[in-house]
């Protein structure tokens, strides 16, 4: 069964991750890149080969073009293609899977994966692939909403804490401390208890539960930028505080927060689908990634494809999203 559960894209993406140093831990002494040597190695690497290449070489490297860049990172390329396909499914599910996700052919019920039904059919004869494709939009929108809520709320809190300082800073940071002491899943569950059920509320709950991390990073960045010369200059020139905040501090401090938002996508997909699996998301028969898995749960013994494929798509999407956001992180490191 493992070969059906592990299609090439997962394996390749994982391989690419390892081969191209997405996690800093990958970079052993001989293959350390400029990014690694400049960003996250506390002490200089040993040996000649770890010396940072000259700036001209780095520029030439960047000029080689996006195609070459991707060819050296097969994991990243596969991730991009996969995410593009998922986005297409979200925007135009009818093109990817023309069938009807809600009605099925009872005669075709519980058929295994094959040419007719790529991912098989469920107990009502509905095509699993079609349902998966049509559930993509809802799941991805919930994920995006969760990331936006976390980003906006966390960034605002962090900005206020870092810029105003004093009592506001203390209050916000204590709040962040407490939010980080409660597991995020539980925090989302508490918010859902209060708000009620539904995909939008789930997304909101996930976003609220993730805001604390953003606030912390944003505050640290604001504190770093606030003492910079150009901020003092702006103050001295008589720029109003809101002007300083929006024109000078915000644009110079949101980099790490945006990278964090990219990484948050994978986390949010998992959180949203977990809550949807628990039954707090869309009401049946509306398909959603997490609820598709829980619908197939009663047939685990006889129809493995009902749970295996939706779960596989979730895992592959998270993997691809993480790979891409880590690439963004590394490239940012290169630019600095």
């Amino acid at each position, binding site marked *: *069964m493992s070969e059906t*559960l592990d299609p090439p894209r997962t394996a390749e993406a*994982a*391989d690419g*991750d*390892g*081969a191209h140093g*997405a*996690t*800093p*831990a990958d970079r*052993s*002494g001989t293959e350390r890149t400029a990014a690694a040597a400049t960003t996250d*190695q*506390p*002490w200089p*690497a*040993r040996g000649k080969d770890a010396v940072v290449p000259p700036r001209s070489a780095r520029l030439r490297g960047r000029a080689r073009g996006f195609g070459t860049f991707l060819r050296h990172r097969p994991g990243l390329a596969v991730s991009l293609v996969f995410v593009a396909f998922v986005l297409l499914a979200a925007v135009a599910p009818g093109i990817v899977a023309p069938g009807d996700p809600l009605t099925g052919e009872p005669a075709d019920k519980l058929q295994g994966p094959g040419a007719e039904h790529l991912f098989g059919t469920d107990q009502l004869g509905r095509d699993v692939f079609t349902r998966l494709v049509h559930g993509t939009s809802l799941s991805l929108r919930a994920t995006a909403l969760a990331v936006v809520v976390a980003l906006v709320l966390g960034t605002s809190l962090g900005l206020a804490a870092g810029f105003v300082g004093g009592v506001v800073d203390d209050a916000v940071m*204590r*709040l962040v*401390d*407490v939010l*980080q*002491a*409660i*597991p995020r*899943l*539980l*925090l989302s*569950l*508490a*918010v*859902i*208890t*209060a*708000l*009620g059920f539904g995909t939008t509320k789930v997304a909101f709950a996930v976003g609220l539960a993730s805001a604390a991390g953003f606030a912390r990073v944003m505050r640290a960045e604001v504190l770093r930028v606030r003492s910079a010369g150009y901020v003092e200059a702006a103050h001295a020139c008589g720029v109003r505080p809101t002007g300083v905040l929006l024109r000078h501090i915000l644009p110079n401090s949101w980099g790490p927060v945006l990278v964090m938002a990219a990484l948050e996508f*994978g986390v949010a997909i*998992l959180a949203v*689908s*977990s809550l949807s*699996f*628990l*039954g*707090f998301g869309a009401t049946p028969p509306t398909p959603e990634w*997490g609820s598709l*898995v*829980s619908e197939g*749960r009663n047939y*685990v013994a006889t129809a*493995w494809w009902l*749970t*295996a494929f939706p*779960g596989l798509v*979730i*895992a592959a999407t*998270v*993997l691809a999203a*993480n*790979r891409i956001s880590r690439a963004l992180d590394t490239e940012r490191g290169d630019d600095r």
Partner: protein
Amino acid sequence: MARYLVRRLLQALFVLWAAFTLSYFVLFALPSDPVGIKLGGIDSTATPEEIAAVRDEYGIGDPVLLQYVKALRNAVTGDFGHSVQTGGEVRGMIADALPETLELTGLALLLTLVFGVGLALAATYARTRRLRQFLLSLPALGISMPVFWVGLLLIQVVSFQWRALPALGNEGFDSLILPAITMALPASAFIAQILAKSMTTALASPYIDTARAKGASRARIHIHHALRNAALPALTVFGVLAGNLLTESVVVETVFSRAGLGRVTAFAVDTQDVPVVQGVVVLSALVFVLVSLLVDLLYPLLDPRIATVPARRV
């Protein structure tokens, strides 16, 4: 040391109080209607008088601040009121369900440690580049997998194809293994990622050269010199990890149809049973605080230099 302990305990108390207050206002200020759900939801046949009687019983009519002060006073003694749904005492419900979940979480934590540390050590110890890269790419895979999916796959393969372990229920140690592995896989990927990173850093530092020059074996350098220094970042996240595993039981116990705190929580959220949810939130904050405190006290044992450094923030 005594002053440090007192300070940490005060911080812990603050976090507990704030978790209680925060959850209190989130749960009670936002529009949920536990009484309505208890009396049969939208198509309820309860008369307004009946509803008013139940509301009085739970003190829902009182001003919010008065309710809060009352609830806080009760919570200090461990009394989180009664479940709206079952009428049982929240403290009792949690106490009844907790042992099963603690067994599960404990085993999962142990497996997390074994898998995570094992993988990180194997990955950094591997001599060939290929093997090292393969091992280092595993954590990225592990943290991408939905927990519920891992559980269902394990049930499919281990319980139904191999018929090796039970798929459902709480009977004996056998039924504990699959849920614990399910919980441990993503968590150990998380630990392995952190540990492998700090191991790589540690192995590149000068004192490793010194140890090698003195003739220490590769294994000894790895375990005795590098791991001991690299363990701290992984240890730091243990408080978060313990809390996460405890909460993950909501998903895992649902997948494996186990009784326990996770099921109690899932049911409470499902029925908007506010007192129960609040009790669980405060409990998880307590677990986080206790584990973090324990970890902080362990620090000096691993790294004597830390004893003189003032307390970190939680």
